[in-house]
């Protein structure tokens, strides 16, 4: 009897089989290769990965020039990336990450032969001067005193905080003893000398606010999620004292006038959605809305490319005065005699800090 199927397969059948086998082999090779590259997420869960980067010996040189400081390294340098920043500062890492954090280098130094006291320096590379100023300003201690010898720097009893170019630095001493604090000053000046940056204090966005009533050292830059509203980013704020009332003004430059107006409206609608009520008497500022949020007032408006307003005011009269001044000031920035756009928001000398 003739066999139903020829013993020798046809050419097409052979080629098809070879193709199927080739695909299977490729899959097998792929699986074999893949098993040697475990997901980073799985590796990250392993405790041994916890301090891997923190203790990296890649660069053991001191992170600060110690010449003539009388200090010696008290611990090896540590370096952190956006992925590992939390290992150093835990939940506070969010503040830096939101502001554009790039890297952190830290190290402890102690006076020679005195290892019961030390200073730990934190050098945050924030990528830009604006970002550095943002974290510097948002953490400014209320009782701090401006350092007269270092621009954009303030001191507390045991520490010195400064912004220098794209860097934000913290110099944390174990105590407030004068010798240690003096040595911190020497190290900070050494860093300034070797890392460039402006010799005068710089405040990004400084020209956005009118001078009348402005509280010294009160300017802040909130890079993300300002006032708890996600769409409010790159918001400059400044403190004012008007008729004895403390107020906070805010300004943000947007892409164009329509974007500023749209954001103002969006913010207003969001506040209303969360229970704010329109104030009975609107402020005497064109296009501005005044909303009552619990027991405070929020004024919001736009002028040209700028979103602006007064945040959490307790006195509607004082808030209206500030809103009027702010609107007039911003009109001056957007009018025919306005300075070139590149100067607006640019770093400027803050005379109050000198």
């Amino acid at each position, binding site marked *: *009897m*003739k*066999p*139903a*199927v020829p*013993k020798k397969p046809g050419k097409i059948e052979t080629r098809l089989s070879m193709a199927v086998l080739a695909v299977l082999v490729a899959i097998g090779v792929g*699986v074999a290769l893949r098993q040697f590259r*475990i*997901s980073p997420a*799985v590796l*990250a*869960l*392993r*405790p*041994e*990965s*916890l*301090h891997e980067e*923190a*203790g990296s010996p890649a660069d053991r040189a001191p992170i600060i020039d110690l010449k003539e400081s009388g200090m010696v390294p008290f*611990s090896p340098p540590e370096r952190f990336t956006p992925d590992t920043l*939390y*290992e*150093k*500062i*835990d*939940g*506070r*890492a*969010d*503040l830096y990450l939101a502001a554009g954090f790039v890297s952190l280098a830290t190290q402890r130094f102690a006076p020679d032969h005195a290892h019961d006291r030390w200073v*730990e320096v934190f050098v945050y590379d924030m990528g830009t001067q604006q970002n550095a100023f943002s974290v510097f300003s948002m*953490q400014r*201690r*209320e*009782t*701090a005193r401006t350092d007269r010898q270092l621009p954009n720097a303030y001191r*507390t*009893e*045991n*520490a010195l*905080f400064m912004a220098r170019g794209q860097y934000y630095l*913290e110099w*944390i001493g*174990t*105590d*407030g003893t004068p010798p240690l604090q003096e040595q911190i000053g020497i190290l900070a000046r050494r860093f300034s000398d070797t890392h460039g940056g402006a010799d005068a204090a710089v405040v990004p966005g400084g020209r956005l606010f009118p001078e009348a009533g402005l509280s010294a050292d009160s300017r802040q830059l909130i890079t993300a999620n300002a006032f708890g509203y996600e769409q409010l980013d790159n918001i400059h704020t400044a403190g004012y004292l008007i008729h004895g009332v403390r107020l906070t003004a805010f300004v943000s430059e947007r892409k164009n006038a329509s974007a500023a107006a749209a954001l103002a409206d969006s913010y207003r609608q969001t506040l209303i959605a969360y229970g704010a009520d329109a104030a009975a008497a609107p402020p005497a500022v064109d296009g501005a809305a005044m909303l009552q949020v619990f027991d405070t007032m929020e004024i919001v408006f736009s002028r040209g490319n700028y979103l602006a307003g007064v945040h959490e005011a307790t006195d509607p009269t004082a808030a209206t005065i500030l809103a009027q001044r702010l609107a007039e000031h911003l009109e001056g920035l957007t009018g025919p005699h306005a300075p070139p756009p590149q100067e607006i928001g640019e770093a400027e000398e803050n005379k109050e800090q000198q």
Partner: protein
Amino acid sequence: MSETAMDRREFIRRCTRAGVCVAAAGSLGVAFYDSRAPAAIPGPTAALTLPDYSVGPLPGRICIARGVDRKRLVRQAFAALGGMQAFVNPGERVLLKVNAAFASPPGLGATTHPDLVKAVVRLCLEAGAKKVTVTDNPINDPASCFALSGIDAAARQAGADVIVPRQSLFQRFSLTGGRLVRDWPVLAAPLLQADRIIGLAPVKDHHRSGASMTLKNWYGLLGGRRNIFHQDVHTLIAELAVMIRPTVVVLDGTQSMITNGPTGGSLSDLKPTGTLIVSTDPVAADAAGAALLGKQAQDLPFIARAEKAGAGTTDYRALNLKEIKAI
């Protein structure tokens, strides 16, 4: 093309070959199949059960002590609650879970103060504890954290052992009903070797959770890249409150870190708040401690979630509340 009849022998031969191929492929698949996920930590994956360390079915107790000297405060607060012997029986092994998260000096308030550690170790030993150990899993280098915070020296001077975490001390743990604490490395060995657990936490502002007090302190029992829990930190803290049923907690608010927490850095971040709270109910302790940060319990969602999860009560005044002024 004309169909021809199948040769039986050929049919059987081909079927056999096909069957062998399928069986071989299947066998290879079975041989390479790993039914377990890649281990988060090496070692056994046996189910871990954590004991309940609480003092039993007694109603919750809390003492709010006012003063400035930690040693006096904690001694007198425990005395007001019946003494340390009300919590620790002779011959028991006591674990003190401190907050040693940062390698910062004790004066900055980012870690449990060594004076408090020393005082509580001594109280435990006076109550007849067979052994007292102190531990935490800091996110900074552990040895540096214990040394520079002063906790290591204080604990050893008072007669306790210090357990610095290492890989072999962790085991994977899943919280029954938990959503986040699932198959996660936990600093298990010190927990399993203890009969009693006392949490010692400072009062701190916390950028992410709003506050770090006794409930947040259990975060330090987790291993791995636990920062991923920051996305839902309130739920995580509530789960930790269910995971650890402590014997008693001590919340140190003699100085509270009001701003820039949890690391602080400046003495100006601290405010003298002159309060130390001892409680068998960590939820109650944190609810009372919130006021030291100028907040109310409802401002801190993790407190309400911990209460809802059955870890305690926010109504600390409903407990057997003692308020004393340390002398």
